[in-house]
C-alpha cells in the first residue's frame, strides 16, 4: 500500500512489545463506545447466571459473587477502534471460579456472554478459562463506572474489548459457535488484537 503523502509518525511507540499492530496508546483517556442506551443497574437486583451446557446452572447475587475468591488483572486492554490502554487494574472473580461451580459438560466448547441490555458476544470456552477472563466490578480501586459497564462487566483482556461485555448478566455454555451482536454486525468472530482480527474477512 502507498505511503500517505506528508504523513509522519506523531504518536510515540507504546511500551516495548506491548502495542498490538495498528493500535495507539490512549494514555490516561478511556474512550466510551456503546451501541445501546447505558442502563442503570442496581447492585441490589443484579445477578449473574452460568447456564446452558452445564451440570449445575448457578446464579450469584451481588453479595454472593463478592464472597467468592477475588483476583485482580493488571495489564493492558485493546479496543478495535485502535486505542490501547496500559496498566489498568480490574478486580473481580475469575471466570474459572464461576465455571467450576456450574461444571460445564464435556460437549461445551463455546460461551455466549449476555448483557442485561440484550448485547451478546461469543467466545471459545478456551478464551475464558485458564486465568484469561474475569467478571469485574472494580477498576483502579473504585467501583466500575456505569458507562464502562458498571456495576459488573466481563473482562477478556487478551481479545479486543468488545468481547468484554458490559453489564454482564449471563454466561451461556454452548456446543457450537454462534455469532454475538458485533460479530453479526461485521466484526471478526474471535478478535485477537495481535493478529488484527478486527472485521469479518481479517
Amino acid at each position, binding site marked *: *500500500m*502507498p*505511503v*500517505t*503523502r*506528508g*504523513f*509522519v*509518525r*506523531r*504518536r510515540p511507540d507504546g511500551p516495548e512489545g506491548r502495542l498490538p499492530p*495498528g493500535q*495507539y496508546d*490512549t494514555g490516561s*483517556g*478511556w*474512550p*466510551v*463506545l*456503546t*451501541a*445501546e*442506551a*447505558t*442502563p442503570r443497574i442496581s447492585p441490589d437486583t443484579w445477578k449473574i447466571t452460568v447456564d446452558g451446557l452445564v451440570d449445575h446452572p448457578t446464579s450469584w447475587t451481588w453479595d454472593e459473587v463478592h464472597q467468592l475468591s477475588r483476583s485482580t488483572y493488571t495489564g493492558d486492554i485493546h479496543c478495535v*477502534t*485502535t486505542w490501547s490502554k496500559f496498566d489498568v487494574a480490574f478486580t473481580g472473580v475469575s471466570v474459572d471460579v464461576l465455571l467450576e461451580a456450574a461444571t460445564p459438560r464435556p460437549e461445551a466448547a463455546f460461551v455466549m456472554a449476555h448483557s442485561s*441490555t*440484550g448485547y451478546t458476544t461469543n467466545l471459545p470456552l478456551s478464551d475464558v478459562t485458564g486465568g484469561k477472563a474475569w467478571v469485574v466490578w472494580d477498576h483502579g480501586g473504585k467501583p466500575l*463506572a456505569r*458507562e*464502562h459497564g458498571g456495576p459488573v462487566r466481563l473482562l477478556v483482556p487478551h481479545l479486543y474489548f468488545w468481547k468484554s461485555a458490559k453489564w454482564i448478566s449471563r454466561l451461556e455454555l454452548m456446543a457450537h459457535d454462534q455469532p454475538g*451482536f*458485533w460479530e*453479526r*454486525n*461485521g466484526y471478526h468472530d474471535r478478535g485477537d488484537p495481535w493478529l488484527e482480527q478486527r*472485521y*469479518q*474477512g481479517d
Partner: protein
Amino acid sequence: MSIDDVAPTATAWTTGRIISKELPTPATVRLRLHVDDRMRHRPGQHYLLRLRAPDDYTAQRSYSVASDDSDPLLELLVEKLPGGEVSEFLAEVAEVGDVLEMRGPIGRWFTWDVRTPALCLVGGTGVVPAIAMSRAARHAGAPDLLRVLAVGRSPEETPYDDELRRFGATVTYTRHATGTRPAGPPSAAELAPLLDGIELAFVCGSSRFAGLAEALLMECGLSPSMIRVEQFGATG
C-alpha cells in the same frame, strides 16, 4: 432488492482519491473521495481511513459516511481535534489528488433500512450519519420517514446547518439564541412532537451528548430497546 442484500459483510482495504476538500465550518473538513472498487453502503455505516508514514507506521480511524449510496463519491466530514493525529492531518496536510487507504463500509447496527420510521437525535459531528440517512430518505422519495433533531453550538459551528434546515430538521443551538428560541440544550417539549410513530431512534455524538440524549428520549417514553447509539470517542 434492498440495500441490505447488497451491502457487503466482509470488506478489504482499497484506496480512495480526494476529489474535493472544503472547510465548511471553522473546525471541520469535508472530503469527497473517489473510492476504488467501492461497495454499496447503508446510511449510518462508516469507513476506516489508514495513513501510512515512510517508516511504515500507520494510524487508522473510523469516519461515518455522509453521502448517500447513490452518490458517485464518498463524503466524509471530520472534526479537527487539537493534537489529533488523523483529523489534523486531513484538515491541514491532505490535498485534492492525494490517495488514502480506505476500508468499508463497516458496521451493520447503527444503520437505517430506509423503511422504518425513525428519529435521529444528533449533536456536533454526530450529525454526519443523520446526513447520510436524510439524503437516503430524500433519494427514496420518503423524507417523511425520518425526523432529525440536531444540536450544535451555533449556526456557524454546526456541520451541514443549511442542509439540515432544508431537510426540515429541528436544529437547536446551545450557545446561540434565535428569534424563537433561547440558547440551550433541546428540551423534552421540543423532542416529543418528533417521536410520534417512530420505531427507532439513532443517537450520535460525544459520550456526554449521548448520555443527555438517551435520558431525554427515555423521559419522552421511548424504551431503551428502540435506541441505537454511536459515540465518537471522546473520553469518559
